[in-house]
């Protein structure tokens, strides 16, 4: 019954668990266990029935005396052990996964666990090995963190290369703590208990093709699986018109892998799992592009009530309906945001933004997003330099002399912030055409007027007018309707 093979392991550098065995198996009574603290008498002694005790980790070394006794208490044998720090192994406590949360829409697993840092001194380096299993072992990933003498909840995301519904995913973790000042052997902890995210192939009502009706970027590699009844045979799986080789996942799940997916038609690409003559499951995959950066973003106002922004969308996304690209116009100075109602089929995009009180400077951000990505384009605009009036209306010509006329026209809009430059086109006969410029103060939904002199008596003239901003020219309005007038006889 001699005590032997004494081994001591610490999980937290403070306490250590020592175990031993006895040379003969026979029936023993209680064991007397004594240890010195830092080799200073007197030793600490106690009785134990187990061949396992927990005692403090010595700073340098400790002497352990183990005495085995018979049932009646007579001593069998006594053995002393000299334990130095280098003889003690350091194995961190087995970590435990606090939560394993699936996000089926992105096929992502989120793992949360505690680093148990409170039992360790500040600043130790901890290495975590996270193993993902799917059927067989699949992926082992290293994660690094720094212990802070507090229990910190660590979180890590892993994105699967296939929908989580396809088959069950399992996760386990273990850790290694680099205690540089600890001279004894250091090792990885045990693996944590395994946590599982069950696949649809474990659900009696889980049949179907996954992912369901999802959107991916052109060029993606996509795994699509078919979950079916136990014992059912998949005849074939097609992606669009093509049959694809199948990958076995489990007795109820097989997958196909589509590499470098190309853009789908407007109604998406059908992925069909044909199980028998008239039984099939399927899904629709929409393969498109992230939105392009809007090009030639330009904003102007025709009436100082609404600002009209236009842009070229760039490469079409190939996504339509409720997956189409959405646009919003955000103005930084006022903080106002407007979502734009855009006609997908119109080459040029248009969005209206209200003119805000007496604000002339607008710092626009055009936000663009669709299920695959987002982008934006910015533009700083001084509205008084971006006036593009509507074409003048209600042009009338009145004449009270044989050589002069007076024109009147109306422009829809509030132009009190600017002066208007208007150009009058005077035509008489086929080739005689003159332009006459006149500058008028901008009005609020006003009628404007101009006098033309030095005309020929009793002559038929055609008049038309267009306007723009006088001080910062941006664009002419369209010409007004032509108005005909004959001057009086001399």
């Amino acid at each position, binding site marked *: 019954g001699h005590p032997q093979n004494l081994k001591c392991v610490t999980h937290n550098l403070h306490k250590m668990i020592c175990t031993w065995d006895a040379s003969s198996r026979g029936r023993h009574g209680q064991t007397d266990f004594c240890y010195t603290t830092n080799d200073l008498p007197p030793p600490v002694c106690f009785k134990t029935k187990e061949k396992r005790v927990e005692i403090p980790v010595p700073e340098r070394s400790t002497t352990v005396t183990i005495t085995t006794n018979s049932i009646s208490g007579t001593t069998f044998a006594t053995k002393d052990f000299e334990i130095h720090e280098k003889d003690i192994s350091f194995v961190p406590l087995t970590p435990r996964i606090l939560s394993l949360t699936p996000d089926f829409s992105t096929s992502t697993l989120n793992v949360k666990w505690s680093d148990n840092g409170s039992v360790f001194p500040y600043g130790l380096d901890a290495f975590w090995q996270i193993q993902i299993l799917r059927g067989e072992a699949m992926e082992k990933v290293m994660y690094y963190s720094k212990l802070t003498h507090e229990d910190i909840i660590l979180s890590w995301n892993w994105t699967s290369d296939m929908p989580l519904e396809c088959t069950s995913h399992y996760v386990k973790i273990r850790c290694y703590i680099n205690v540089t000042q600890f001279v004894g052997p250091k090792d990885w902890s045990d693996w944590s208990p395994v946590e599982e995210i069950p696949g649809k192939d474990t659900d009696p009502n889980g049949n179907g093709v996954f992912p369901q009706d999802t959107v991916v970027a052109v060029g993606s590699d996509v795994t699509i699986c078919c979950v079916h009844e136990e014992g059912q045979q998949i005849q074939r799986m097609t992606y669009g018109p093509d049959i694809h080789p199948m990958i076995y996942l489990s007795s109820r799940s097989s997958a196909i892998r589509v590499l470098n997916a190309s853009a789908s038609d407007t109604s998406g690409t059908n992925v069909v799992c044909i199980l028998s003559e008239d039984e099939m499951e*399927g899904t629709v995959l929409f393969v498109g592009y992230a939105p392009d950066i809007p090009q030639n973003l330009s904003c102007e106002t025709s009436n100082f009530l609404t600002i009209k922004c236009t842009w070229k969308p760039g490469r079409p996304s190939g996504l339509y309906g409720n997956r189409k690209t959405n646009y919003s116009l955000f103005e930084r100075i006022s903080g106002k945001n407007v979502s734009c109602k855009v006609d997908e089929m119109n080459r040029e995009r248009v969005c209206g933004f209200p003119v805000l009180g007496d604000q002339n400077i607008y710092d626009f951000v055009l936000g663009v997003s669709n299920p695959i990505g987002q982008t934006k384009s910015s533009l700083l605009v001084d509205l008084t330099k971006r006036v593009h009036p509507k074409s003048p209306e209600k042009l009338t010509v009145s004449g009270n002399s044989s050589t002069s006329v007076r024109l009147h026209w109306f422009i829809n809009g509030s132009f009190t912030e600017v002066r208007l430059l208007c150009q009058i086109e005077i035509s008489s006969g086929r080739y005689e055409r003159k332009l006459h410029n006149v500058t008028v103060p901008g009005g609020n939904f006003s009628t404007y007027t101009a006098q033309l002199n030095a005309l020929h008596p009793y002559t038929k003239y055609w008049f038309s007018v267009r306007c723009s901003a006088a001080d910062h020219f941006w664009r002419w309005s369209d010409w007004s309707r032509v108005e005909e007038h004959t001057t009086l006889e001399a």
Partner: protein
Amino acid sequence: MAAADSPSAALRHRDLCSRGIRLAGKMRLDVINLLDTYVERQGLDASASVAAVEGVPVAAVERWDEQTGTQRLLENLVAYRAFRALLAQMLEEQREQLGEADTTLGRALAAVLLQVSAFTYHLEELLRLESRGPPGEEGAEPPPPPPVSLFERKLRGLRVLRELAQWALRSTRDLRQLAKASPGSGSVPSPPNSP
């Protein structure tokens, strides 16, 4: 309103039947064209066999030849009211899924929906002539189909159009039977062949 069996009612009955036959024939052609467009635009396999779908009226009928005229009209009316709702649902889904990207299919769907609505009204006219009057629509509106995946929607649409094409054929035959009988007679002997 003319008594059910007066000469003008018989004339109106025959006129409604023959116009109905023409309507059903045109509708069938348009549905078949729409079916081709639908299969192509939805990326479906034209030969795919699609299981029966709840809520989609089935054109096949047993002992077709033993049906009375009123039975024929009532079954037709129930079916086309259902198709009117199903096509409206398909049109809405089409707009939601594709927006302005596929107006060809949208316009074709809308055109057939218009014809189905017109044919439904036509059947109601015939039933009024039968001095029975069509059953009210309260509660007749089929419950909106349960939410299903996009692929199942595509298959359901395929099934709707296939059955509608068959119904247009059956309606033509039903109306020919009806044309032989006077209005309000209810029962119609018919030769022993079924659609």
